[in-house]
């Protein structure tokens, strides 16, 4: 038992050295991380983030690790509400980024947030259709046409609440064939061709641009989702969590978020 563990320790040390080396390289070129993150933070940061943040947060996590040698960012992506339930049931995590203030409120109301949540981006709905828009959908009212199958998110999750708001604003009475459990599930029904359209976030449509078209519609302005982020009260690594939350406002992170289709708050 003694020998393997010492080998492991040596390996770990080597890995750390390597990581530090990489970090120094990466830090050398842009140094856009901003002053906040330069205060030496290290260790693992566990980030629970809304499913719609998947692509951009993975990139930001990589950038953050590069700018802060010795840190390791681990993500858990899921529907915001599911994550909020996990946090309120005591899941160990450092940071929570939700897709709606209402969901965030369930966490802060339960006293699990450290300080006030900060809105870092906004997101808007688009109509996702199959590539080339074969059904010729041009707006919300086209979704009620006979023969057009629509998937929405369930009202319990943020994208479903936003969809309801937008449909109400447009005064469109729509009967979807399914109410999906999160935005990615709704989008995959479009990708698979099982539905003709779904209301998803602009960012999700953009991430799936190879398979779907995202169609902007005016009523989505009535259903803009704020994305708040908060450091959790029981965060095992609070300093690194705060650094990551601060990093979201850095130019580098903003560029990633904008490229993904998010809007500045």
């Amino acid at each position: 038992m003694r020998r393997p563990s010492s080998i492991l320790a040596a390996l770990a040390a080597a890995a750390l050295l390597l990581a530090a080396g990489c970090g120094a390289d990466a830090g050398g070129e842009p140094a856009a991380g901003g002053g906040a993150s330069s205060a030496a933070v290290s260790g693992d940061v566990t980030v629970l983030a809304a499913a719609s943040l998947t692509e951009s947060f993975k990139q930001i996590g990589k950038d953050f690790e590069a700018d802060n040698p010795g840190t390791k960012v681990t993500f858990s992506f899921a529907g915001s509400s599911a994550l909020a339930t996990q946090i309120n049931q005591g899941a160990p995590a450092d940071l929570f980024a939700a897709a709606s203030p209402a969901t965030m409120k369930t966490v802060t109301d339960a006293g699990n947030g450290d300080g006030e949540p900060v809105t870092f981006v906004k997101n808007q709905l688009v109509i996702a259709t199959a590539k080339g828009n074969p059904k010729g959908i041009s707006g919300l009212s086209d979704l009620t046409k006979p023969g057009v199958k629509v998937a929405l998110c369930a009202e319990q999750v943020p994208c479903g609440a936003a969809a309801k708001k937008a449909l109400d604003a447009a005064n469109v009475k729509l009967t979807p064939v399914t109410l999906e459990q999160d935005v990615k599930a709704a989008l995959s029904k479009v990708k698979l061709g099982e539905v003709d359209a779904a209301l998803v976030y602009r960012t999700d449509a953009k991430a799936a641009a190879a398979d779907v078209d995202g169609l902007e519609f005016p009523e989505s302005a009535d259903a803009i989702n704020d994305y708040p982020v908060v450091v959790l009260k029981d965060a095992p690594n609070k300093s690194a969590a705060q650094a990551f939350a601060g990093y979201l406002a850095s130019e580098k992170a903003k560029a990633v978020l904008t490229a993904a289709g998010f809007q500045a708050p």
Partner: protein
Amino acid sequence: MTPTRRQTRARVPLPLLLPAGLGLVFLVLPLVGLVVRAPWTTLPERLTEPGVLTALRLSLLTATLATVLCLLLGVPLAWLLARITFPGRRLVRALVTVPLVLPPVVGGVALLLVFGRRGLVGSWLDSTFGISLPFTTAGVVVAEAFVAMPFLVIAVEGALRGTDTRYEEAAATLGAGRWTTFRRVTLPLVAPGVAAGTVLCWARALGEFGATITFAGNFPGRTQTMPLAVYLALETDLQAAIVLSLILLIVSVGILAGLRDRWIA
């Protein structure tokens, strides 16, 4: 709990008793958690919410239909595997258990790829008969049957292999054909195995979540079964989710206990 008392009382060896007790506690403790945390004061009004009964009725209906489908297809399949030697039998036996190891969500995607609008069989069904399974109650039955059938096949095949084939041979020497032998001799012999398999199959179908929500979607009254309702309630209202879980639990345990007494006697 002294050794002498245990010996005189039950003569159960400790190496069996201890893990057995732990196993029971492990299985029952989560149920205790549900019961303890249930919102008993608001229970009556939660029970009478319209969505609850709809989901329960749909769950019972689809699980029963799925079980009937499994019986019609699964018992002959079990007979084939147990009684007929053919090349590739071991492979077929392994293939039958695939839905057991497949994560149900993957099963749902696989079903979409076959029975979906663009699926191998589904596109033909759609263009020829105008039948589309996803997002329908029939789709729920298909998803549940896919996941639950292996339980029935394994139970019935095990029972068939355990029976004495001399009864069937005697029937054959008396002039009975294979079909008659199967109906009049084999089936009555393995009735307890079929009953056990049916119960397992029904219970699995009733609790099915992943394949159902992926293949059939989620729409109240049409495809939203109890497990789906529980999952979505969990997004916003933990207490409602606990109530729904308890109802499903009480109804299913009640039905199973009732049937068991009748069948075993």
